[in-house]
């Protein structure tokens, strides 16, 4: 018998495609949450593979906090145009009105209002019964035990004690009106898998992942990029041009850069494998309390 050419990345790809098709075949109104980051780029690529040659049978939705990096928005615009995607952009109107500002109100309130609350509003508004997301089990301890299809109550809460068992590749997609599913096709991918797949499949990603000279202010040990005029400089602070890249993308005031000279994809992979710092470290939201992601998830954060 010939040896199998079915490598681990091909297998992960096939399993993700299976999940996409299963949810689309059984749910009434799915949506894909598109965050513009590298995981979203992989997710989108897999979705296009799953339904080829048909167009994507669901829209993409971006929860825009208005504080994303400018290059992310530019990238989003290009991708949507290139693949003729149906994109919904949603911002919490109450948050806009209150002028929620992560610099003034802090990361936790900003995340609560502009992300968690905004996402709930958008899901209610459009009545989606399934939402694809790019979360992976290797990202954080509480995610290791989450299902591929994660059930949410009518108030979008996650109950870790009441999860549906998932056996073989048989998925139970049934929900009652008002309830919904979060589907995570990348559950079994690791950060390394994602990077290798991007490399092998030549998937476009936001240039912020590659090192470049950028205007940086160092605060509390974090390297923050001064992306626009809303960045309030404290006395004595002035942006320095430093060669940095981002391991994770989100709202620019909450996302730390790392110093790096890796300006190509293979250099990034090389640096990542040698450096070894797990990727959520660049995000502020996990720092507050032990178990903070678990709490946020129960409240409805993705």
């Amino acid at each position: 018998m010939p040896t199998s050419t079915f490598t681990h990345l091909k297998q992960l790809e096939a399993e993700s495609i299976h999940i996409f098709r299963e949810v689309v075949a059984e749910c009434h109104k799915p949506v894909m949450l598109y965050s513009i980051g590298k995981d979203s780029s992989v997710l989108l690529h897999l979705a296009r593979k799953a339904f080829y040659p048909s167009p994507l049978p669901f829209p993409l939705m971006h929860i825009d906090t208005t504080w994303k990096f400018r290059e992310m928005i530019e990238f989003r615009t290009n991708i949507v145009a290139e693949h003729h995607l149906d994109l919904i952009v949603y911002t919490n109107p109450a948050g806009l009105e209150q002028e929620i500002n992560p610099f003034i109100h802090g990361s936790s309130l900003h995340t609560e209002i502009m992300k968690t609350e905004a996402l709930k509003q958008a899901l209610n508004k459009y009545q989606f019964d399934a939402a694809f997301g790019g979360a992976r089990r290797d990202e954080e301890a509480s995610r290791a035990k989450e299902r591929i299809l994660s059930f949410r109550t009518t108030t979008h809460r996650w109950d870790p004690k009441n999860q549906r068992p998932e056996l073989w590749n048989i998925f139970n997609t049934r929900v009652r009106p008002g309830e919904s599913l979060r589907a995570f096709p990348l559950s079994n991918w690791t950060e390394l898998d994602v990077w290798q797949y991007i490399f092998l499949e030549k998937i476009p990603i936001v240039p912020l992942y590659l090192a470049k000279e950028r205007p940086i202010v160092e605060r509390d040990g974090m390297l923050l990029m001064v992306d626009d005029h809303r960045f309030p400089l404290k006395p004595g602070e002035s942006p320095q041009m430093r060669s940095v890249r981002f391991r994770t993308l989100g709202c620019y005031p909450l996302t730390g850069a790392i110093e790096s000279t890796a300006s190509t994809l293979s250099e990034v992979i090389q640096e990542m494998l040698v450096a070894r710092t797990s990727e959520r470290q660049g995000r502020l939201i996990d720092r507050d309390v032990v178990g903070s992601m678990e709490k946020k998830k129960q409240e409805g954060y993705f």
Partner: protein
Amino acid sequence: MTTPSDLISQDLATYLKSQEEKSLLRFITCGSVDDGKSTLIGRLLWDSKLILEDQLATLQADSKRIGTQGGDLDYALLVDGLQAEREQGITIDVAYRFFATDKRKFIVADTPGHEQYTRNMATGASTASLAIVMIDARKGVLIQTMRHSYLVSLLGITKIILAVNKMDLVDYSQDIFTAIQTTYEEFSQKLPFEEVVCIPVSALKGDNVFHRSPHTDWYHGPTIMGHLETVDILSNARQQPFRMPVQWVNRPNLDFRGFSGTIASGTVQPGDKLVAPSSGRTSTVARIVTFDGDVDSAETGQSITLILEDEIDVSRGELLSTVQARPTTADQFEATIIWMHDNALLPGRKYLLKAGTRTIPAQVSELKYKVNVNTLEHLATKTLKLNEIGICNVSLDQPISFDPYRENRQTGSFILIDHYTNATIAAGIIDFALRRADNIHWQSVEIHKEARATMKGQKPFILWFTGLSGAGKSTVANMVDKKLHSLGRHTYLLDGDNVRHGLNRDLGFTDADRVENIRRVAETAKLMVDAGLIVLVSFISPFRSEREMARMLVEQGEFLEVFIDTPLEICEQRDVKGLYKKARAGQLKNFTGIDSPYERPDDAEITIEGATQTAEEATLTIVKTLEAQGLIPTS
């Protein structure tokens, strides 16, 4: 063994090339509470250098705060995820962990060892191709070891690593190791394992996990990682006949009609002849389409889109198969069921069965026995509770195509879903088809429902009255019956008390008997609808599932639920039959509303406020609704 980081700093191109050849192994670890499963996995993560710097910082802090190793690194904390579990010091669910070497990527299902968590182990084992069974060298082979081995064999795992752990605590004694090995091999001969490899280890110290131990020079077998990296994992499914459950019909335009799915077993090439077993129609594979272009062949596990040469009727749920070895198609089979929910199995109750991409109503028609997972004894039983395993006959509303689980894990497995809560309540593996099904064919009748209904000049349907005893169901149902009769409708009233005197007089009031009671009444009502009648059913019918089951027996629009919503206090005050008094006095057991639950309908077509509406008003409301829905002519 080279770790990724050695290679990558030397030669990135070679490294990335090697990534394209890496395979994937899924395995499960099982053992009792303190056997050290989490420590072993933590050690594998640690030694494969996948512990990242900030995780290490967290681990150091956590080890000091809540560790069980006196401030030393507690590897188990890397694995025990949710906060509640960490604080209890135990794992309570299935957690998936990932690590990789240059040869393979590994996905580990970490499952707990307590007796009550059979469910989690079955879940983890369902996708694994190897199991590591952990034994504490000080304790030897325990009842739990037997249970874990039985469960992984039941789920179809044939490759076992017996990890005899904590060797450091028995001075790396060869005698102790050999004794355990002999006991286990004797026991496991009864189970259909292909390969059992026994390894002496200390997960805590790292002996024979990643690195060969200097303390066990008497041992010449592989280390855990050495075996994991080299064990043959080319799936047996590849050599099985071709099967692909159709997930989605891909129709971007009129010229393209593809069948998308994941290959469950075998391989496929253009020119292969396939059958759609539900119709028996055959066709030939014209193209295998993927996003990356058409391919010449595809194998087990790949997600593809097939285009056939002929226009044959194929929809989601069809199990496309090679014509050379067709699957079984039947509506009854024997299965082994693992019950996974707090609400026990009720034979006769309709559940949804999902097998492959097909979901259909099904029931356990006969529960033969349950298995004591510690002794493998067969025990008589009427129900299955959480974590119990039973052998039973399953009958389905429509035939499905499948293979026995021992031949094909993908096409021989199913889950059961509760209709009402949508919870996944059981996992099942198909043992074999019951041939009886093939021999009893439905009588083909030429005078059908429409013909009979047309002769009566009416639309047949069921009015299902539900509510507490004394709510006024029978009073209202009687009055509606008279009203419809006076309007020239052909009706029949099935009343709870009357049916219990005849058709159902063998049934009592336990939950199981209540389910059977309603099943018979619903089936009777269905036959009457088929005869063209308007059927009024007046039963307490306390469970949502049975009302849903009755609804599903007839076509959409033929079932109207009428909820007589009278508060318990008022029913009890009325107490026409003196039953509440008896129930309160403890003379009547399992009385609905007192010591047996009543599940209120959430979406009844008609709700009558029994406390405020008179029977006449209720009748008017019901008749008006029937008119508005076009079920009876407007008077």
